[in-house]
């Protein structure tokens, strides 16, 4: 197992380097001179030359990349053109918002998806099965931002059950420690803030969970059906065990291994969906930071956000792979 983990960790190095190279080149590929963009229209020829030297743009490309890597390793991602804040700080405040959203929606998606999948498999070809599978297919077909808008229309504008946008009600007076508002409100015992954060999170989390729910339900149904046909299930039934025990003790546990992988791999689509969900609900997460970076041509922010999302995605895939290898020895020794 340790050698497998070591191999996977080694493989991580070229991947991370490749991502950093891509992010570095991305800015060079964008039409226009970064120095000119930073200066705006006002700069003279002299200013432009100075800015190019300051940004290191007068050096050859490989030296520029080397400098970029060195800064990256020191945790320096540059400054935002619009706010002049350090990009690292912007990410420190926005990333927890995205994690909070994705984790909650992952929990929602897993619970509902697995439940629907198991029920559909056990009641195969009944109306429950048909309804949930058609529902899953419709769920996969809807754009995530439209689902968000419709939920907002019904539950925020029409029924007034949830707030429309943002992360927290400012009147909740939360002392910020970790930037994870749910955790901060628990640490400080501020239950008003906890309630406010949670109510701001629910609609975005449900929005983001819709497509993964459908994927997880379809996957769980197919793996559960597979397990239902296994000999040990027939044996369990033959020895007179109650159907409930057969399903939850024998079938459910064994059908879950591939589902765990699917849930882990879905995290990528959670992160991608977060970009759109955060825009709909005006949540200050890293997805929204990225969109603001792109539309405002704020290159440092754009690079920082892409780097963080991609790195996080890779690390997560690594954890899923290791978990899967742990559960399934065949992978470890291949």
């Amino acid at each position, binding site marked *: 197992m340790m050698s497998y983990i070591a191999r996977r960790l080694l493989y991580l190095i070229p991947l991370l380097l490749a991502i950093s190279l891509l992010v570095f080149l991305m800015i060079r590929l964008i039409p226009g001179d970064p120095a000119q963009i930073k200066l705006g229209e006002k700069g003279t020829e002299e200013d432009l030359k100075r800015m190019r030297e300051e940004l290191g743009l007068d050096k050859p490309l490989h030296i520029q990349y080397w400098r970029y890597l060195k800064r990256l390793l020191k945790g320096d991602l540059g400054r935002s053109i619009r706010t002049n804040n350090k990009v690292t700080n912007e990410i420190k405040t926005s990333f927890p918002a995205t994690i909070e959203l994705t984790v909650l929606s992952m929990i929602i998606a897993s619970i509902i998806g697995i439940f629907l999948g198991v029920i559909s498999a056990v009641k195969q070809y009944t109306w429950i099965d048909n309804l949930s599978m058609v529902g899953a297919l*419709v769920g996969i077909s809807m*754009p995530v*931002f439209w689902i968000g808008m419709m939920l907002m229309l019904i539950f925020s504008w029409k029924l007034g059950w949830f707030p429309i946008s943002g992360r927290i009600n400012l009147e909740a007076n939360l002392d910020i420690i970790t930037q994870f508002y749910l955790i901060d409100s628990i640490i400080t015992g501020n239950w008003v803030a906890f309630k406010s954060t949670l109510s701001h999170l629910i609609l975005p989390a449900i929005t983001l969970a819709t497509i993964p729910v459908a994927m997880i339900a379809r996957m769980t149904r197919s793996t559960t059906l597979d397990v239902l046909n296994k000999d040990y299930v027939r044996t369990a039934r033959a020895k007179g065990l109650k159907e409930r025990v057969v399903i939850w003790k024998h079938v459910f546990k064994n059908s879950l291994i591939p589902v765990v992988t699917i849930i882990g791999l879905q995290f990528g689509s959670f992160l991608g969906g977060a970009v759109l969900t955060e825009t709909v609900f005006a949540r200050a997460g890293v997805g929204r930071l990225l969109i603001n970076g792109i539309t405002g041509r704020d290159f440092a922010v754009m690079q920082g956000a892409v780097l963080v999302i991609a790195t996080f995605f890779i690390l997560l895939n690594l954890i899923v792979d290791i978990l899967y290898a742990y559960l399934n020895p065949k992978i470890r020794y291949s």
Partner: protein
Amino acid sequence: MSQGKGESLWDLAYRNFKRNKTAIAGIFILIFFTIIAVLAPYIAPYDPFEQNFLHSLEGPSQKHLFGTDEFGRDILSRVIYGSRISLQIGFISVFISMFAGTILGVIAGYYGSWPDMLIMRVVDIMLCFPYILLALVIMAILGPGIYNAMIAIGIVYIPKFARIVRSAVLNIRDEEYILAAKSMGAKDIKIMLKHILVNCMAPIIIQGTLSIGRAIINAAGLSFLGLGAQPPTPEWGAILSSGQNFLRGAPWVAIFPGIAIALLVLGFNLIGDGLRDAFDPKMKRT
């Protein structure tokens, strides 16, 4: 590839597909939208660009079945014209990824060795990014616009096709008929086109159909973020984006284009699922 009694894989798949009611429903949805797209100038009640401020943000009525937007433009006409754009985006972007992915996949699978290594490492790196993130990065480089969105989405799906085609090629690379063709002195390019590609078509078609749906959704997402189609283009995602500003008072601006996207994508998903079941009946039974 004979399936007994002289029936080919394609005959069997066609027979299976015809019997699949949901897949046929998908075909009907696709035909419906294709007819709408082709006949748009004849069936749209108004010019999709015509502004009429006297009738801005009017709710659905007999005159405007889907209501009007902030410029008084008829939403129904814009949704009808939008089907042209979304179908184009779906087909063109998937064609880009299918074309490039198939070439890369065939080369990687057929030659193995360093071309395989090189292509698959690039594919791995591309897969390090969530789809929409990669599309956003490419859009940042190319700049906003509907054609750039097609290119961005086309590039994003290349790895998927490359992987599928490569594994299909690996399965058949050492089959006797390929070895026979080689020993008869056939050129690599001829073997790839005539023998390998033909036998990889099933997974390519299935993946292609399912990808069109995703491409349409992703393109709408890019337009929603202001990076894809630009106003006043009647693209569904762009209409939704402007509809968001009037969600409370004029929800119809956002409701109808969303339904159109979901319905069209559902059509492609039903057909894609049907094709997968048709080519691989074992999967359906599990």
